């Protein structure tokens, strides 16, 4: 899998876990959210992970995390994104499970 463009990412995630947007613009409330997104995209590329596998990890992480009261949609989404990324790496033996 080559590096995804934003359009491909949107298309791949639309049905499962669409990226948080407001008025069509990506919502990053804090810089870490953008880093987490960028890191995920590069990891998918480098590990040759397909969309189906990523969607599964992401959907499971979103289901685990939910949206705690007081937490914004973008924070909840990217927290789950990060969690999914950690688990994906662990499943590939690339990260010590903590």
């Amino acid at each position, binding site marked *: 899998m080559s590096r995804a463009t*934003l359009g491909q990412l949107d298309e791949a995630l639309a049905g499962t876990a669409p990226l948080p947007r407001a008025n069509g613009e990506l919502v*990053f409330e804090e*810089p870490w959210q953008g880093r987490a997104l960028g*890191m995920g995209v590069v990891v998918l590329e480098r590990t040759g992970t397909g969309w189906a596998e990523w969607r599964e990890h992401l959907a499971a992480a979103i289901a685990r995390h939910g949206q705690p009261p007081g937490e914004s949609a973008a924070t909840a989404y990217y927290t789950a994104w990060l969690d999914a990324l950690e688990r994906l790496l662990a499943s590939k033996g690339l990260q010590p499970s903590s």
Partner: protein
Amino acid sequence: MTQEHDHDHEHHQPQPQPEVALRTEALEALLAERGLVSSNAIDAVVELYENDVGPQNGARVVAHAWADPAYRTRLLGNGTPAVYELGFSGFELNTLVAVENTPAVHNVVVCTLCSCYPWPLLGLPPSWYKSPPYRARAVAEPRAVLREFGLELDSNVEIRVWDSTAEVRYLVVPERPAGTDGWPEEELARLVTRDSMVGTGRALEPSELAGR
């Protein structure tokens, strides 16, 4: 050089979840250490996506300040409401201070303890902004750092280094290039680069626009 700050005040990752930001950083560091993902590769992706949240917001603010002297005065007087006039929010929890470059004074922004950055205007910070060498050296030897960015300043130009905090973020208003009288704001905005608003570069000259 002017040192504006003591370093005892509170620097921290602002709301809402400092620990998730730290987890992100830790994972990035781990991936870099393993040679799996470099920070530069992440930067490249983020840059690709940041047409959505990029420095063009800041560029519009600067272009408007260049074109409208009354707005420039408001921006330099109180940045937060001035950028809100143009529809840019995100400084509810801190204050935006705009500082203006002149032939005699050059401003440069750093965050010595972390990576505080006016991201609603400039998008996500580049990795050099977060790097320990930049954070340390921008204060200790700004002239040398700026030279490495390709910015050679006359020795009589005063350099002011602004250390960002959780409470205060800075936007540099670069000098308006010559030969741009009467330009519409959209054209002016194209001259305003990210680095020029951090103070590590100048606005582009009209002749530099052609290749972009």
